[in-house]
């Protein structure tokens, strides 16, 4: 390995009007395309049918695919993007380069570590929130004392 492998991730939305087999074959086309170009497919994630936030080509939903792969050169990207752009079945796509944290994140997500992490965070936040409330009632407590002293002094 003379050159280090770079990690990329391509996410694309497939037209939901197609039949189930066509959708799968569309996704497989690009996976095979990448493999034939000498890339290593790290993971092929089918995220499934999702509601779009805004309509694209008069469609309100789409099937999301996310393919993580590593390649030695970036030349494959432009070839793949050209193919994606020409394909009418692909509604939208996005290719990004993953840094080392991105690779680790995807790895953890596949092993189910991320979901737990989120839960822990929420618990921590819940725990953190009541703490100031507990502290707050303590503060007004010394309030009557100075008043009493002030009255005493007035007398």
């Amino acid at each position, binding site marked *: 390995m003379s050159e280090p492998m770079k990690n990329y991730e391509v*996410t694309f*939305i497939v037209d939901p009007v197609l039949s189930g087999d066509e959708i799968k074959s569309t996704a497989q086309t690009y996976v095979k395309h990448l493999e034939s170009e000498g890339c290593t497919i790290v993971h092929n994630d089918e*995220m499934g049918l*999702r509601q*779009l*936030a*805004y309509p*694209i080509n008069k469609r309100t939903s*789409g099937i*999301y695919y*996310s393919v993580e792969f590593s390649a030695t050169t970036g030349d494959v990207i432009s070839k793949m993007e050209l193919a994606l752009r020409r394909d009418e079945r692909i509604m*939208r796509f*996005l290719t*990004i380069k993953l*840094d080392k*944290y*991105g690779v*680790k*994140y995807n790895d953890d*997500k596949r092993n189910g570590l991320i979901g737990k*992490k*989120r839960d822990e*965070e929420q618990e*921590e936040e819940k725990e953190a929130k009541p703490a*100031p409330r507990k*502290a*707050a009632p303590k*503060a*007004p407590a*010394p*309030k009557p*004392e*100075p*008043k009493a*002293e*002030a009255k005493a*002094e007035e007398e």
Partner: protein
Amino acid sequence: MANKDDIKFLSNPNIGQKRKKYCRFRKYGIRHIDYKDPDFLLQFVNNQGKILPRRITGNSLKYQRKVAIAVKRARHLSMLPYVTDLLK
């Protein structure tokens, strides 16, 4: 006579104090922000889908930039809207 030490307790000193903001990414050690997770990114946009400023979210500059990029990527993939009303 009440001296200065007594007077400062006549009003609750904790009223009007703001809770210290912090960067959640630094606090919890999140190094990568996933653009494919719109529910998480929803915390960083307002009702109209605009990215919230750092002075409200409390993010550090490094992670605010990453949040902004992630939100923009999510918008491109139609996971977050570009313009909307009553998002939340």
